């Protein structure tokens, strides 16, 4: 079996497992997996920006929050049918991401990181300031979607499957984008801006669009989050969320599509296990596991799977062009090292 077929089989296996979940587990676990899917969408969006396009964002929690509040407010205050709030949240955050992406073009590396961090800090404050609209620190409870009577599913199963459907659409969209011409352009920008521009790629347009798209993904995830949890408050959207997403893309595997799922599994389940082991040492265990993970699997979970795949494949196929592209280290030093002129 070639490596490519192995990969395909792997993805199919994942899909099958995902479909089985609501029927194998009770409502609590299913709820956890629903959240995993929610996070996976946001993490995928961030990976588009960071892994595939070489930018950085420490503020995706803000877009996540923006999407969540958009959905929550539309459902509770404007009686908009909940399904409709998903694309609306996506559009709102897409626009927000675009508006931020334009001035952010001037920022690189650490400075862009700070700019986005500023967003993450500002948003909870703005939510509190406009508490007439958002209910501020009290938080806003949202009626969660229930399983329609013509479907044989329980509420938690329905919610999971609905989230799975939306997540699948988002994943397939990202995957086909990355395989397309536009995807190559996005990756080219990451690998070297100046060479990319000599190839005729419009840097500014590509970068802002990717920023907007990745924000849109976070916004869609935010809306799904509202369905899953049924409550929004500024305390739920602190800087911790943005940092967790960042950790997740590295844990899952930078510049991978499926990695987002593993990253989401990590940030959802490891803290719970850590606090089960010893609630006085939760952070020590979680931080320790994170460091260990980076030590053992610097390419993330998907990196590990790929290595296993290479070993298992009986007939190593000729290296396929797109694989090489994704695994290659950027030829030019990643921007933002503050390196003055004269670097060899």
């Amino acid at each position, binding site marked *: 079996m070639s490596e490519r077929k192995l990969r395909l089989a792997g993805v199919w296996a994942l899909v099958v497992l995902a479909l089985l979940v609501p029927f194998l587990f*009770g*409502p*609590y676990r299913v709820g956890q997996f629903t959240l995993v899917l929610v996070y996976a969408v946001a993490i995928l969006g961030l990976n588009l920006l960071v892994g595939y396009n070489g930018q950085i964002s420490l503020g995706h929690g803000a877009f996540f929050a923006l999407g969540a509040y958009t959905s929550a407010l539309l459902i509770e205050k404007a009686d908009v049918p909940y399904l409709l709030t998903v694309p609306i949240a996506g559009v709102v955050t897409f626009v927000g991401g675009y508006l931020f992406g334009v001035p952010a073009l001037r920022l690189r590396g650490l400075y862009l990181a700070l700019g986005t961090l500023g967003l993450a800090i500002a948003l909870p404050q703005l939510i509190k300031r406009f508490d007439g609209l958002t209910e501020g620190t*009290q938080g806003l409870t949202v009626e969660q979607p229930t399983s329609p009577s013509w479907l044989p599913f329980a509420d938690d199963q329905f919610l999971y499957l609905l989230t799975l459907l939306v997540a699948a659409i988002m994943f397939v969209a990202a995957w086909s984008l990355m395989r397309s011409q536009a995807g190559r352009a996005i990756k080219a920008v990451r690998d070297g801006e100046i060479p990319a521009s000599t190839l005729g790629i419009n840097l500014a347009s590509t970068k802002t669009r990717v920023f907007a798209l990745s924000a849109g993904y976070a916004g869609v995830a935010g809306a799904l*989050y509202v369905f899953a949890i*049924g409550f929004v408050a500024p*305390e739920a959207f602190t800087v911790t969320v943005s940092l967790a997403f960042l950790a997740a893309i590295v844990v899952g595997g930078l510049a991978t599509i499926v990695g987002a799922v593993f990253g989401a599994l990590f940030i959802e389940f490891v*803290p719970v296990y850590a606090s089960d082991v010893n609630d006085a040492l939760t952070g020590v265990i979680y931080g320790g596991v994170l460091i260990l993970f980076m030590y053992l699997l610097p390419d993330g979970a998907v990196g590990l799977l790929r290595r296993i795949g290479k070993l298992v494949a009986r007939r190593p196929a000729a290296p396929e062009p797109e694989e090489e592209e994704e695994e290659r280290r950027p030829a030019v030093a990643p921007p933002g090292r503050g390196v003055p002129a004269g670097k060899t």
Partner: protein
Amino acid sequence: MRRSVWVLLLAMAALLIAGCGRDEEDGGGEADPGITDEEIKIGGSYPFSGPASAYRSIAEGAKAYFEKVNAEGGVDGREINFITLDDAYEPPKAVQNARRLIQQEQVFALFNTLGTPNNVAIWDYVNKQEVPHVYVATGASLWGADPNSHPWTIGWQPDYVTESQVYADYLDQEKPRAKVAVLYQNDAFGEDLLNGFKDAIKGTDIEIVAEESYEVTDPTVSSQMAKLANSDADTFLNITTPKFGAQAIAADAKLGWDVLHIINNVSASKLLVLEPAGLDASQGLVSTTYFKDPAGPDWEDDAAMKEYKSAVGKYSRLNPEDPFGVFGWGAAATLVEALTNMKEPTREALMEAVRNMQLKVPILLPGIEVKTSGTQDGYPIEAMQIQRFEGENWKLVGDVIQAPHSGGS
């Protein structure tokens, strides 16, 4: 292509088979879940990690009480199994903890969940599941305001509206024309106290002349303090949590701002606030309390206090002078009383006992009782006493002030 078809068929088959195999987690119809002849399972969600982790002492105090009760034979021979989960003060984690406790651990009741947003996040769900959601660890007036909407939920401590009423009463007596400057935390806790105070001073000659807020994520409140000190207030109302309370006291002293300084109950801890800020700077501070001070000499020989300190020493890592531990202990004592008074081992019976209680909890101040009178009474404790810091300790002042909510709800 053929492979994909196979996989799909396999998947569908697996789905069909597995479809019947899901373990349903709601129990049968006999006894209520979480209670057997041998044990009662209680669930709690607390911030064991994260920015609010200082409050984990509350959980430790409660656990110590349950251990003590278990050592004495439990409640009617049933051992209390207190399952606590960490939510890091994050609402989504609290939601998941509530689900886990109710669905997976099958607890009999949720007890002492901490934090206003966390409890708001879960109370719709918990009430829908008809699980007792008792003695939540937050002073928001929300829990008792409309018992009909969430009949399974009830608070415990004197809520922030009661507390601010007590401050207003005190000021009305001592300084009827007080001009007050307020520092408050910009969240549900701070706003509740501030708004409660504003309501309480309506119709009096007390005036708020300056207001400054701060965020829990701010490093320091020095600029807010400078602004407040610059106003023409003669009274300072300090609505903060411990770290910022200490900063405010220290800033007050440094600025030489010599006004009547009222500090809210959460920050009235000698251990966590006054000692770090400096006992000299803390002279003359006024606050309220409703339980016996573990750091003061007044209750050293008190039987209830001795029992508390010995249990805490035996069953926890708590510093015996930490007042948050006493809080947890008192709430736990109330729960055990309700469990003892329960007429049947059902959740409804528990709520009935909770809603019809008149209890003297030994660790509370004499004159302060846990009292509920029926389903419309959402506030178990509605009394506090003023205390003033003199020398090295808090000294109780005057009498217990009853500050019941108007209209009984």
